[in-house]
Each structure stands twice: as structure tokens, then as C-alpha cells.
């Protein structure tokens, strides 16, 4: 896509803002519209834009297939791990009250960590799905039908 100068310049301009906006949506999920899922999708959309302009191989250099699987797994582990840690603090699963000195603070801290897990998992999954489809070479040739 080297000849699409306008596309490249615009994408370069937009990318940092998309990624920062993803982080904004991530950290404001507890007291405003947004949250982990949306943040993960926005973040992955930024990565997909990068892949559309510079090619899937360029994206794979940034985030190899293995990394996206690690991200997905890590996200789930953060989520479930937070839930399980509250068991050890003497509360029910996903009851974050024990995560800080007072219960309200604990709830806020808990939901931020859980949403971070969701965000990482969603971003990893979106990128993995995109690269799986975009990086696929046709295995069945026309004559095989």
C-alpha cells in the first residue's frame, strides 16, 4: 500500500489517538460509559487499522499469533484470578470488598482489575480472529472442488 500516501498519513495520525482512547475507555469503565469489552475492541480496531494499511505481516511483527493467544489466556486468568483471590480474603467469588481497607474502595479496585482482564482478553481475541482470517492462504484450489 506504499502508494496510498493519504491513507498512510491519516492512519498514522489516528493510530495514537485510537490507542489512547482505548485506554481512556478502559479506565473510565467504572464510572462512565465504557469498560473492558469496549476498550479491547477499540484497541484491536487500532491494530486492525494498522494491518489494513501496512499489511497483515506488519501486524504479525508487532503481535505474533502466539502473543495474541497469550493475551487471551492472560485476560481470562486475570479475571478468574481476581475472583478466586476474594475467596482467600473470606468473601464470595467476585466479591471485591476485601481487596482494600474499606469495602467501597475494594469494589472499585476489583472492578478495575477485572475489566483490565476483560480488555486484554477481548483485544487478544479480536486480533487473533482478524489475523486468522486475513492471514489465511486458500488451502483448497479451484480444481479440487
Amino acid at each position, binding site marked *: 500500500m506504499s502508494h496510498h500516501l493519504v491513507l498512510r498519513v491519516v492512519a498514522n495520525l489516528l493510530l495514537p489517538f485510537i490507542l489512547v482512547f482505548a485506554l481512556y475507555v478502559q479506565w473510565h469503565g467504572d464510572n462512565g460509559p465504557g469498560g473492558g469489552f469496549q476498550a479491547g475492541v477499540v484497541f484491536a480496531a487500532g491494530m486492525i487499522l494498522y494491518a489494513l494499511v501496512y499489511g497483515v505481516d506488519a501486524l504479525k511483527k508487532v503481535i505474533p499469533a502466539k502473543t495474541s493467544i497469550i493475551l487471551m489466556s492472560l485476560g481470562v486468568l486475570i479475571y478468574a484470578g481476581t475472583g*478466586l483471590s476474594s475467596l482467600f480474603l473470606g468473601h464470595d467469588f467476585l466479591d471485591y470488598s476485601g481487596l482494600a481497607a474499606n469495602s467501597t474502595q475494594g469494589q472499585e479496585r476489583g472492578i478495575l482489575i477485572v475489566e483490565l482482564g476483560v480488555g486484554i482478553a477481548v483485544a487478544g481475541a479480536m486480533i487473533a480472529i482478524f489475523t486468522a482470517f486475513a492471514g489465511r492462504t486458500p488451502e483448497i484450489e479451484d480444481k479440487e472442488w
Partner: protein
Amino acid sequence: MPEALFHHLPVLQVVLTLVAAPLCALAGSRWAWSIATAASIIAFAITVTLFSSVLDGTVISYHIGGWAPPIGIEYRVDILNAFVLLIVSGIAVLTLIYAQKSVTAEIGSEKHGLFYAAFLLCLTGLMGVAITGDAFNVFVFLEISSLSAYALIATGADRDRRALTAAYNYLIMGTIGATFFVIGLGLLYMLTGTLNMADLAQRLFDHGDNRTLRTGFCFVLIGLTLKLAMFPLHLWLPDAYSRAPSAVTAFLSATATKVMVYVLLRFLFAIFSFSFAFEASVLRVLVLPLAMIGIVVASVVAIFQDDLKRMLAYSSIAQIGYMLLGLALVSQTGVMASIIHLFNHAITKAALFMAAGCFVLQAGTTSIRELRGIGRDMPWTMAAFVVGGLSLIGVPLTVGFISKWYLVEAFIAEGWWPVALLIVASSLLSFAYVWRVVEAAYLRDAPEGVVRKEAPLSMLVPMWTLAGMSIYFGVDSSLTSAAASRAANALIGASNLFWQ
């Protein structure tokens, strides 16, 4: 067991396998099987503990996040879903032991990590559907189990490329089913403003009969019957089961549709009720005839299949018909017959599909024609198949007989002789398709120059455990029938508190 740990068992039941799934994906092919097996064994141990503590009729309630129901999500273990959990986690352990050799042969080793991750996610979803007391949570877990099931079926592509289209068709049909289900839930929520099952039952009763309730009921019914492959909504099932890897077929056939039958029972009789006149008429006028047609049509189609797995898949559709017959009778004995058949069919069909998987491994085929003379080369596998086959027919001393006995008894008690006769007559159809395999295996000569060895021990043991159970619980059904009867009473008793 320490009190604190026991208190958390309902959630650990679901969460441990959920945590093990990403670990499988991270650990890669080498450790995935061990992690998955260990996780499923722990899950089974938890189920056994839960089952033994609810056997006396107590109900365990767990509040996720410490939020009390009906606002928060509640996990609610009673005898019925503990029984279903026992089936799901027990079959999972046996299938995973069986899977090691079978999966190595059928799926490329680079995919094993993700395969076992998907397997555990599917298990998590199915157990979650069974354990939760929140109607929307059912939908969430339903999607977790279904999405991972699509992926599991697609892994059959290494052996047969058509697994991809089978998985895709299942994806489309399953998604339509889930959509219907969630629209139905939406209507019920609109009507009552609650999603907790017990609360829903109470408020629906207070509300009384109206058109929105009826519409919601129909959406839920259609969504679930699509997922459990009621005739004529079964079209996804034969392809999905016959092209999935053998271990996946054995697991899904024994658990996925059974859990759906459980959800249907829960909605029909614990959220709605016998006394909801519209439900009774829909079940008797629509579901009962469809179940009967399904039994006959699927059995006849099964007779003409050359592919063993496909034949068993059609037989599954017929067997689901028996479960639906029981619940469509709208009586306590009918529900009990459904529940007991749920268990009996799960162990029988898992054993049969495991035998089919052994044939895939050692003979490389599931074509009945090519399996001629297999009874002499693989005597143990074929003997397990025969035990399973006898149970499908309903021969005395097998679990199939117990199921049909209770079912026929339930219909005779209501004076529905023609249906009872059909149940007995349909055994002849099952005999026809089982006999074709037996004849080919024992009475025909093996094809020239084919060398086939007996299946390895790690596959024979789980298969024979299930086949042995099909005989044991066929001889002494006191345990299963007591559990099923108490489960039916608990189920119906819960809603009859309101709907009198």
C-alpha cells in the same frame, strides 16, 4: 472438608475448569492433556461432594459477588442439577482419559493445546448451564459451551474436511436457537422484571396467563428444542456428530443435548408449571407428536446409514424423542422417565461413540461395510458396542430397558396405550440398525489384506466403564431411579408451591 471450602464448592465447580482452559492454551501440546484431565477429575470430585450433600433434599445456594438473589446471580444446586452435573463431569473425565490416544491420532499435535482448552471451556459452559439459578446466566453459559463445541467439531477437519461445513451449519443453527431462547427470556423479563429462576416462577404466577407470557414460552421452547435437536429441528446433528473427532462426539452426544433437555425441564416445570394450561396443550399437541414422528423417522433413517457414527447420530435423535415423550406427558412419572433416560442414554451413547472412535483409530474407518469381521480383530471393542447396542434396543438387564420400562409405565398410567405401543414397537427399529453392525462385525469375513489390532487399554477402560455401568444400572436401578424420582419431585414441587 473445611466448612469454608465447602461453602465455595458451587462456584469452584465452574471456575476451576475455566482457569484450567487458558492454562492448557498457554502450556501447549505437551501438558494440555494432563492439565485438562486433572481439572476434570477435580470437577468430578466436587460434583460428587455436592451430589451427596443434596441427596437428602437440601438446596445449596451460592451468591456470586456476594449479591443476594434476585438482584445478584445465584448458583443453586438441587438434586436435579446435581444429577446432571454428575453426568457431565463424569463423562468428561472418562472422555479425557479416552481422548489422549484418540486425539493424538485424529488431530495435529500443534492444535492440542487449543483443543483441550476448548474442551474445558465446553465443559465449563455445560456445568455452568446446569448449576446456575439465573435464567440469563443460562444463556451466557449456553453460548460458552456452544461456541467451544463449534470449534471442537471443526477440529475434525484434520481427518475429514467436511467437519468444517458441519461445524458451520451447527454454528448457524445453534445461533438461531440461542437467539430464540434469549428473545423468549427478554419477553419474560419484560413481563416480570426479574431473571432469577425462583423469582421468575413466583412473579409469572402472580401475573397469570397472558399473550406475552405465551409468546415468551414459545420462543424459549423453540430455542431449546433447536439446541437439543428435536425432530424436525435436528438437521445440524448428524453432520456435527459424524464428522467431529471421536472423543468430541462421545462427549457432546452424552452431555450437550442432555444439558439442553435439563434446561427445558427446568423451564417447563420449575419456571412455568403443569398448571399453566397453554404449556400442557403445546406439549401434548405439538411436542408429543413430533417426538413420536422423530423416533420413527430417525430410527428408519439410521437403518440406511453406512457410516457407523452417522447411524449412531440418527439414533441419538430418536433417543431424544423418548426424553421429549416423557416430559410431553406432563406428569410426574413422565418427567421421572425423562430424567432417568437422560442418564441412561448418556452412558450408553458415550460408550457406543467411544467404540466408533476405537474403530477410527485401529481400522481407520467407520463405514459399516469396511468394518466387516471387526468382531474377531477387536473383540473387546465390539463387545462393548454390542452392550451399548442392546441398551439402545432396550433389552432387559441393560439401562435402555429401565428407561423404556418407566416410560411405558408412565404412558399406561395415563391410559395412552397407542404411545406405549409405539415405544415398544420402536425397539424393533433400533434392533434393525444395531443388527446390521453386529451382522457385519461377526458374521462377515474381513476384507482382504486388512490388519486391525485391538484398541489400546487407555481407550478400552473408559469405554468398558460406561458399558459396565449400562449393565450395572440395568440390573440394579435403585440408585438411578431413586435419584430421578427425587429430582422429578423436587422439580415439580418447586413450581407447584405457586401454581396451584
